[in-house]
Every structure is written in C-alpha cells, then in structure tokens.
C-alpha cells in the first residue's frame, strides 16, 4: 500500500511535467510554404467579428496562392509568391479571445514553436499592443490591419506596420462631415444651421480604444468649434445602459456619438429607442455599429444611423476590384465584405506585396521592403490612395495614404437595410437622410 501511494504521488506530480517537457518544437516547415501567424478573436465577445476577419484573411491567401484571372491585383496573377519561387502562404490562426495576455503568449508560440515569418492581427487594440511588443522583442515583423488606437504607431517600433487609418483620421473625418453638413456639401441635404447639430454628446466604452476615441472627440470638437455637452465613459461588460442613456439625452443633443463593440452597440440603440431619444444624428465609431449582427438584429430601427467605416459594398460602383473581391467573399460567406473583413484582406495583401518585394523571408529584408513599399490604391479593395508606411516623424509604421468613410444605413428598393456612403462627399452613393427620423 505504501509503495503504491509513493509511486502514485511521483506519477501524479512528475507526469504532468514530463508531459510539459516532452513537447518538442514542431518540425521545420517545408521550404515552399511561408507561414504567417494570424491572431484574431475567434471566440469570445467579438467572435462574430473574428469570423469576418478570418474569412477576409483566408480569401486573400487563396487569391495569392492561386491564379485568379478575374481579379485585377498583382497577387492574383501568379500562384504563390513569385519572388520566392512560388512559395505558398500558409496562415496559422490563433484565438486570443480578447485577452491581451493570451495574445502575447500566442505570439510567442507562433514565433518560437511555429517559426512564422511574421504576424497579422489582432483587431483589439489592447491585444495588438501586447502582441506587437512581443514581435518587437523578438525582431519579427507584424502587420496590423484593423486596430485603430492612435497610440499603437506612436511607440517608435521598428517591426510594426499598420495599414488601416486610425481613430484620429476617423474622428476628424466626422467633424469635417459635420462642417460639410452646415455648408450644404452633403448630397441631398440643404445647409443645416450649426445649432441644429449641437450640442454633441458622446458615450464611449471604458477600454483602451473607447477612452482614446472619447479623448479625440473632445479635441476635435474644440478644433472645429462644436459644443460638446457631455462625453461619458461607460463600463464595458456592465450591460444596463439606461442610466447612461438618460444622462445623454438630458441636454437634448443634436448629435450623438458612440464607440462601442457589438453587444453594447445593439443595447445602446435599443435603450435609445425605449428612452425615446430623438437626436438629429447618431454616429457610431465603427466596431459594433458596422457588424452584420447590428443590422440583422435591429432591422428598421437603424435607418438613418451613421457609422464610420472603411468599406461599403456599394462602392463597387466606383471601384472595380472591390466588386470582384466582394463577389468572391459573398460566395464564400454569404455576407458582403465589411470594414473588418476588407481590412483583414488588405492586411494580408500588404504582407504578400512586402514578401514579393523582399524576395526573402529574412526579417531584415522584410523590414527594408516594408519601409519602402508603395502599393497603389487601384489594387486595393478599400478606397485609399494606397499603402505607404511612414518611417519618420512621431508616427512610425503608419500607412499615410489611408482614409475613412462615413456610411448611413438606408433602405434600398427591395426593402433591405444597406450601408450607403455619404462621406467623402465625392464618393457619396446615395442622398443622405437628414434628420434622423426617430424610433
């Protein structure tokens, strides 16, 4: 009996560790494959966004790895990376569940165990922050396609590049749009007196991203001389918003601005409805306000709601390549491309272009290629002038050619809710509905 317990104790304690120690690094990859680690929130509160992001990256990899004659992009012209002997892109997906700590651990695994060439991710700014710090430490290139916290490119990192424009651009766009509204530049709307749009109130979630946006709204309101009556930060994940909404509608706002992820965004609009809010303009800073769920859940309630975005399917009218990719994406998932998927697609597209230019998987070569690359806007699905990263100044690795859009939910002829572009003014795809008709 004694010896039994002795043995079982030893087994108990040591076995778990033998297990740990016994895991040998995975075998080196075949040379014809270029591994890129992709870290997205595949489960957790942002799982819906995660699915979109994943589909976007997968589609880009598919276009890169195969010859696709119908697509006007350099990477569709040949199979794999030409400069690397036709090596194929292989994406290794990891799920960070919205947890920065987990994200950093996953990045380490990707770098040290999977020997990835580089990393793409991570959607949440908070996770991108930790993951990029790991990459910086190990000298592994990382491209970020969809995190919009301005702070990310202010850290002087040498191994971090961001393709998407960030919240400062977006928030400034909003105020330019409001100014345009007073000057009659918006399609279908006569000049609106400024006092109709005032006061402005904002509610942002109390997270890395939300608190940045809140700060930016304050700065921009001052810069463009709009009266900001209230800007509150609410606790994300504390899901009764009636107290917040009540306080928001008290000053009788003309414009309401929000920065919320999906579940809060839905709840916010519902609470606005039940508390009988009637602002002239409701604007959401992407994220929750742009997800398919937002549309499918709230249906007619959101006609007239504005959201900043980077991609609207209707711009296919203006941009041919966007329509081609969107058709493929719709075939794959059943949805149109959205802000998340289009940017994820563009992020991987940037990766492919950089690898093509570097002609090597050596980190130094990739770094050099990334710092000098110029992808013209005509090859992108998003309406940017192109991709070119800044290498000096107070922002390092930020794409300087990006720009945002503002879309409005409208009902199309067949009764579906679709997003129409209202800003930039020259890209407007429909007349704007003004004022917001109320719930």
């Amino acid at each position, binding site marked *: 009996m004694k010896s039994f317990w002795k043995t079982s104790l030893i087994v108990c304690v040591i076995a778990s560790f033998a297990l740990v120690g016994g895991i040998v690094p995975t075998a080196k990859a075949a040379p014809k494959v270029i591994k890129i680690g992709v870290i997205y929130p595949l*489960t*957790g*509160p942002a*799982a*819906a966004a995660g699915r979109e992001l994943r589909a976007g990256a997968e589609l880009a990899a598919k276009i890169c790895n195969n010859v696709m004659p119908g697509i006007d992009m350099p990477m569709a012209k040949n199979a794999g990376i030409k400069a690397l002997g036709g090596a194929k892109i292989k994406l290794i997906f990891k799920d960070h*569940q919205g947890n920065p700590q987990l994200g950093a651990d996953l990045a380490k695994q990707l770098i040290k165990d999977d020997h990835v060439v580089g990393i793409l991710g991570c959607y949440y700014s908070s996770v991108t922050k930790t993951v990029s710090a790991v990459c910086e430490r190990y000298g592994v290139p990382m491209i970020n396609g969809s995190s919009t916290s301005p702070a990310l490119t202010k850290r002087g990192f040498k191994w971090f590049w961001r393709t998407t424009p960030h919240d400062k651009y977006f928030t400034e766009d909003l105020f330019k749009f409001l100014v345009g509204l007073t000057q009659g530049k918006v399609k279908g709307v006569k000049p609106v007196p400024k006092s109709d749009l005032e006061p402005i109130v904002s509610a942002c979630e*109390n997270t890395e991203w939300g608190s940045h946006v809140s700060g930016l709204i304050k700065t921009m309101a001052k810069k463009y001389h709009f009266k900001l009556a*209230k800007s*509150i*930060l*609410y*606790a994300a*994940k*504390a*899901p*009764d918003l*009636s*107290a*917040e909404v*009540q*306080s928001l509608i*008290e*000053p009788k706002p003309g414009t309401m601005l929000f920065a919320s992820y999906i*579940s809060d965004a*839905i*709840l916010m609009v*519902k609470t606005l*409805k*039940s*508390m*009988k809010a009637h602002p002239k303009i409701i604007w959401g800073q992407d994220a929750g306000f742009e997800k398919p769920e937002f549309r499918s*859940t709230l249906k007619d309630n959101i006609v007239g709601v504005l959201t900043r975005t980077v991609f609207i399917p209707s711009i296919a009218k203006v941009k041919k390549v966007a329509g081609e990719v969107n058709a493929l994406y719709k075939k794959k998932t059943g949805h149109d491309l959205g802000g998340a998927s289009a940017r994820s697609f563009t992020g991987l597209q940037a990766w492919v272009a950089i690898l093509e230019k570097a002609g090597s998987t050596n980190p130094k070569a990739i770094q050099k290629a990334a710092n000098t690359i110029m992808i013209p806007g005509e090859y992108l699905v998003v309406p940017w002038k192109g991709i070119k990263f800044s290498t000096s100044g107070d922002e390092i690795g930020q794409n300087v050619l990006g720009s945002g859009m503002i879309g409005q939910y409208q009902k199309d002829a067949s009764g579906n809710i679709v997003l129409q572009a209202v800003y930039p003014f020259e890209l407007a795809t429909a007349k704007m509905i003004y004022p917001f008709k109320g719930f």
Partner: protein
Amino acid sequence: MGAFTSGMIQSIVSALLMGMVFALVALGLTIIFGVMNIVNFAHGEFLMVGMYACLLFSTMTGLDTLASLPFAAIVGFLLGVMCYYGLVKYLLRGPMIAQLFGTFGLMLLLRNLALLIFGSEPRIAHHGILVGRSFVIGHGIVLEATKLTAAGFSIILFLTVSWILNHTKVGKALTATALNAEAARYMGIPTERMNALAWGIGGATVTICGALLVNFWPVDPNIGLLFTMIAFATVALGGFGNIKGAFYAGIIIGFLIYIPTFWDTTTMAIGDKALRGIHLFSFKYTFVYLAYFLIMVFRPHGLFGIKE
C-alpha cells in the same frame, strides 16, 4: 417643470424599478440563508441559468418571453433541489470552509458549462411584447415596459413568498426549520426535505427574475458574479435571512446604482464646468461593492437588523 426636476424624477423612478428587480434577485439568497444558514456563491449563476432558459424556451417554441416564466421557474426549482441533493447535503457534513469551496465550485461549473454550451457572445431577447416598449408619463419621463413588468413581478413574488411562509403548513415547517433545525426534527418535520424545498424555492424565484431580466439585460456566461455581488449587498443591507428587509434593501441598491445619474443631473443643473467634467458612470457598481463592505463592517446585522 425644469430639466432638473424631470431628470430627478426620471432617475428616481428608474432607480425604484431597478431596485425592485434587484430585490427579487436577492430573494432566493435570503430564503436559503434563512432556512439553513448557508450562503450560495452560485446565486448569480442561477440567475444566468434562468436567463438562458428563457431565451432557449422562447426561441424553441416561438412564444413570447413572458410565456417562459413557468418554464424558468421549473428549471430553477429543479436546479435548486438537484444542487441540494447532489452537493449541498454533502457539504453540510464538512467544515464551514467546505461549504464555501463547494458552492464556489458550483459557480465555476455553471459559468463554464454556459460558456461551453452557449459561447461567450452576449445574448438578449430581441422580440416580445415588452421589448423596446415604453410609456411616456409626461414631462419627458419614460417608463420602460420591461422594467415595469419585472418590478411588478418582484412585488407579487415577495408577497407570495411571505404568504407561503406565514400562512401555509409548509411555510410554517420551513420557518420552524429556520429557527431551530434540531427541534424541528424532533417535532417530526422532515428537515432535509425542508432544506431541499428552500433551495427549490430560492432557485425558482431567481430564475423567474432571470427570465424577466433577459428582456432588457444581455446575458453572457460571466454575468453571474455581478448579480451575486448585488444579491449579497442587498441581503447584507436587509439583514441575512430577512425577507422584508431584502425588499427595502434592494430598492436602496437600486438608488446606489443610479448615483452617477443623480450626480450628473445635479451637476448639469449647477452648471459648474469642473464638476460637470467628472462622470461616475464607470463607478456604477463600485458603490454596491462599497456598500456591502461598509455594511458588513459597521452593521453586520443589516441596516434594519437588531443586534442579537
């Protein structure tokens, strides 16, 4: 009526309604505690089960969420009884610390089973008679139908439970068990079954509350803790085991959660720039935690409790 007055009235009304809902959350906890002096850590998780049960029922049958109340009650009752016979009975034999570990384990289990089954995406009832409805009662004061209904049910359930305890045979047996379990056993009361019954009733009230709550409050697997804390604060304020106390304490908790709104309305009225810059919304629940802590330190027998 000025903006200040109407804002204040609106806040008071909302706080009252929310408070009654919180009282209902705490009702089950205080029943269980009253009868057998054990505290259920998994109380908030019971609420979560009720919320999911309601959503599941209404999506599967296509009926309104209100129709799921009896279903939620049955689920809650069974859950409570099962927990008693499957776990709590064994915990009672061990030291106090075992009870703590045990219900704590139950909390983890329910929380993660929910995660496993439903995933972590928040869900909420999107359709129903109540969802999104509200009444304007003049001067911009809005009553949300969902909260009004929940508050109404809270009053009904409180009255029912007090009536059962005071006027039925079972209720008297329960009270007897609560007062002195040993003596009750000598009197021929099946105390074990009474304990199970307390767990059943406790479970049923809290799942009903969950089914009402899900009309306006999204559910996700981690929601339980917030409600456990709210319930504990309520029960601590009202005095452990005191049903009437729980009702009033719930209303106080409701007002605590609306402190940021009161503050906001007041500072708006004063119009001072510096004060208006301070927003307390991210501290909404902090006041509840603080209340629990302070009440346990200074008035461990509750705000209305008499020192034994």
